[in-house]
Structure formats: C-alpha cells, structure tokens
C-alpha cells in the first residue's frame, strides 16, 4: 500500500463570481521511501498540492490518505496533532524562529511529542549531525548563512522522524553551489534514512535528482515522464 494516496483531489477558490481552480481532479500515489519532485510553471498549483498533502490546507473535494489516515476528515485539532507526528515541512524561506537557537529550533517539534528531555537531546544531536551543523547548535538564525539556515530547517523537518517530508522550493533562495549541497543532503537523507520526500522545484536540474518526477500544468497533474527525455526535450 502506498504511503500517500490521493484521489480526485480538487481545490477551488471563489473570488466574487470568479472561480480559481489551482488543483483539478488530481490522483497520485507515493510509495514509502520514495523521492518525488514536482515541477510546473508559477501558479500551476504545486504549493497547493504540497500543502494539501502536508495537512495545512483542505481540499474542496477528493481524498488524501497519508500513512493510512484520511486526513481530509480530521478536525482542525486532530490534524495539528497528526502533523506533529507525520509531517516534516521544509520552507523556501527557512522560516526558523528568530528568537531560538539552531538547537532550539530543531527541538521545537519534539516538544509536542511525549519525549523525555534526554531523548529529545539525543534526537536533536543526531539531526544536527545529519545536516553537518553540530558546531552551530547555539547560533541564532541571524548568525547563520542561508544554506546553514536551510540545513537547520531540514533538521527540524526530519527530527521527529515523520512519515513524509515535504519541501517547497527548498533551494529557491540559494545560490547554485549551496543549492547543490542542499539537494545532495536531501538525496542522502532519502537514501540513508529512507525518508519519503516530496519536493517542489522550478529547476529541472534539481528535479532530476529525485527518483520520480511529476509535473503540474494549470492544476492538472501529468503522468510522470522519464527524466532524460524531459531534459532532452527542453534542450538542456
């Protein structure tokens, strides 16, 4: 059984008489341990789909099952508790809490789980080591570079060992070299820890590191194409 299973997912917004449909009748299955990239033009509905899977947005119709839970049917409070255990979210703009150190930022989601202090410390240290920032534990976000901030963001997303980690343009704000490091880190986490990853990106090269690639076109999810063909077709 796939880890993420989506059926007929539609999201609509109503602005006066105007109807905006960022996502139209999408169906998708993601296996446990997979690394999926999602590409598409700006406004094609990538973030919308990602947010629905992460349980921070609600569909107009359709079903989303993640790790066996029908998340569209949960109440707001149940959904929050579900997110704490099952979702890691990596933001484009890192979104670290500015008043907390790298260590405290990573520990934050663990405070919601029934874990003893020692257990939390152990997990944070492992996550810090995994992203190579053990020596920056006591630094505040403003004392870190963009790439380091994003690595803290990644550590925060994986520290609770969630069922699925989503990333919305995780390298969108970074230079080419740093982006490469971050992508490599994500690839390693997927390969070594078996983290299930769904990553939105604009960049075909970034998308190509994923095991599987999806495209969205004006809210319509397209059949995955083999990556090499996609690149050749674009003349890359």
């Amino acid at each position, binding site marked *: 059984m796939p880890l993420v299973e989506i059926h007929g997912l539609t999201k609509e917004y109503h602005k006066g008489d105007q109807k905006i449909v960022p996502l139209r009748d999408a169906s998708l299955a993601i296996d446990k341990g997979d690394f999926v990239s999602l590409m598409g033009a700006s406004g094609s509905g990538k973030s919308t789909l990602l*947010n629905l899977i*992460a349980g*921070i*947005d609600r569909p107009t119709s359709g079903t989303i099952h993640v790790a066996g839970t029908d998340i569209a049917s949960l109440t*707001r*409070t149940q959904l*929050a*508790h*579900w*997110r*704490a*255990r099952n*979702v890691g*979210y990596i*933001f484009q703009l890192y*979104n670290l*809490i*500015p*008043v*907390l150190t790298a260590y*405290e930022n990573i520990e*934050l*989601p663990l*405070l*919601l789980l029934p874990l003893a202090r020692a257990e939390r410390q152990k997990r944070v240290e492992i996550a810090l080591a995994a992203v190579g920032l053990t020596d920056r534990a006591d630094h505040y976000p403003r004392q870190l570079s963009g790439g380091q901030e994003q690595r803290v963001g990644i550590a*925060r997303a994986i520290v609770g060992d969630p069922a699925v980690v989503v990333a919305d343009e995780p390298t969108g704000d970074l230079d080419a070299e740093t982006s490469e490091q971050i992508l490599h880190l994500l690839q390693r986490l997927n390969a070594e820890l078996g983290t299930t990853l769904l990553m939105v990106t604009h960049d075909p090269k970034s998308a190509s590191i994923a095991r599987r690639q999806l495209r969205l076109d004006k809210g319509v999810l397209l059949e995955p194409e083999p990556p090499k063909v996609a690149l050749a077709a674009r003349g890359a």
Partner: protein
Amino acid sequence: MWKFLPYIAKNLWRNRTRSALTISGAAVAMFVFTFVGSVQEGLANLNRGSQTERSLIVFQANRFCPSTSRLPEEHARILAKMPGIEEAVPIKVFMNNCRASLDLVVFHGMPAEKLRKVRDLNLVSGDWSTYEKQRDAAMVGQALARRRSLAIGDRFSIGELTVTVAGIFTAANAADESFIYTHLEFLQRMRGMKNSVGTVTQIEILLAEGTDAKAMCRSIDEKFRTGAIQTDTRPKGVFQARAVGDLVDLIGFAHYLGYACVALVLTLVGTTTLMAVQDRVREHAVLQTLGFSWQRIFGLVLVESLTVSLTGGVVGTGLALAILSWKGLAVGSEGVTIAFSTSPLLAVIGLAATSIVGLAAGIVPAWTAARAEIVESLRSI
C-alpha cells in the same frame, strides 16, 4: 506548557523596549491601584480593634475641630461615677492641622494609668517607667515615628509643643499608630494654650459590659444639658466616621480611580499583546505547520500576556506596599486618622487583578493568532 516558557520569555525579550514600557505602565497603574486600595482598607479598619462598640466620645456640643472643644476635666470624675460606665478618660487633643492632611500629627494627653488601661499599646522600644517619670515624655506610634524618623530620646516639636520620645508602640489598630500620647497635665500647661488647665477636649467613656451605648449617650448629654457647657456624646465609631466624613466621600471617589487603573492595564497589555501577535502572524503559521494546535497557540499568547501584566502587577503593587509600609502614611481630618493599610490582602488583590486583566487582555490577540489560516498566514511577510 512549561517546556515553552523559554520561547515566551525570548519573544518578550526580543521586543524588550516595548515589553519594558508596557510593564512600567502597568506597574504605575497598579501602584496607584494599590494606594487607593490601601486607603480604602485603612478606612474600613478605622473602627477595628479599638473597642469602638464599647466606647463613647463626649465632646463639647456644636464643636467639630478638637481645638475648639473644651470640657471641664471635672466632667470625667462625674461621669466615672455613673452606673454602666467603667472608665471615663479625660483627653486633651492637640494637633498640627485641623483640616484634612496627609501628615497629621495628633497628640492625645491623658493620665498615664488610664492610657495603659484603655489603649492596647505594644511597646517596640522604650519603657513605661521612663514615660511615667518624665514630664514631657511621649509615646509615639510606630507609623508616625517612621514618617518623622523618630527614635527614643529624640525631641520632637510641633509649633509651641516639644516632647521627648520615651517609647514607640504598635497597636492593634493601625490608625492608632499615627498618634502621640503624652501626659494630660503636660498638654494642659503647654505654652500658648491659654486657660486650658482643668479643661479637656473630650472624654472617652468605656462602657461596662452589657450597657446600651445609645441610651447612655442620651443620658450623658441630658446630665449636662442645663450646665454651662453642653455635651455631644456619640459612640466612638460614629464620632470617627463624622470626623473623617469629607475624606470618606473623597476615598469613595478614589474607587473609580482604582477601576480606571485596572482598565488602563487592560488596554496597555492588550495593545502590546496584539502588536506582538501581529508581528508574528507568519511565525504562528509556522508553529501550526509544525503541529502546534490552535489551543496551544492560544495558550502561548495568553501566557505571554499574563507574564507582562503580572510582572507589572508585582512591580507596581510591591513598590506601593514597600513605600507605604516604610513611610507609614496616614491621612486624617479633625483629629481622626486613617492609616494607609499594608495588609497582605492588598498584594493578593493586586496580583489577582493583574492576573485576570492579563488573561482578559490576551483573549482577543490569542484568538486572532490561534484561528489564523495557515496557508494564508505563511504567505504574509
């Protein structure tokens, strides 16, 4: 919630100037609130612990200020023989100011042996034998001693009157601690008091157990009705209430000042908390994304609001009580004083008020933060 306290503290510290301004505003308001509460409680305590139900005050009829009432000392001896009267204490009152004053100094001259009998004084320094031997000796209430920095052996003058401090006392009733007790004769013979030997300001009656106070008032006044000097006798509580009557209205009005202070704290803390929440719309959306429930975010904002309000309350109330107990302030009128109370109850009321206000002020901001849509808030800058 304890696990999140560092996060709350750090957020307050991030905007420390704003937090500090709000806390000091709340502190000032709670300072005033406590002051108002203190004098109100002082008024309520006026008649406590001084046997006011069993005591009557005989005053000259149609006189209000103690400096104008003159009764023959002889009246005390006549009254002492009446059935139902246990003690009749002749008292000469001298004071620096007949009108309402924050620094009223009131001298009560009465025979030393009566003083020990009718007043429940507790000496904290000095001794009775020195007092009894020395003509110009004075027993000074602790509140007044503190206010005027008086110690044993000090000489203390008000106008033409100079006394030597022989003892400092505390009393069951805080208002008594603003008095100075001296020998009756010494006050009667002081310079500037013409023809005052053999006269007193008032006579304090201690009734025998089971005597009807009102009936006794009537029969005393009846007794002297045909004499040269008529009397006006009232239960001590009634007498005191009339003396501070003007102040009672003023203190009653100050009540509203107290409410205004609480409202001020509410708006101050509410505004600050709302601003803090508006600054962190995105941050709260991130917390929700991490799995913080809306209830938890609601709680975090409430605790933040409570922390600001309560800190202001602790500082303001604490400062007010510290100053009040150090200064021993009393407000008085017509020879009767109302001591500013410094009871622990005031601290409890102050802290309870700021707690409630802190929670109330946080409700709207907390609700705003907790119910915000995540995706929409994440898009905001």
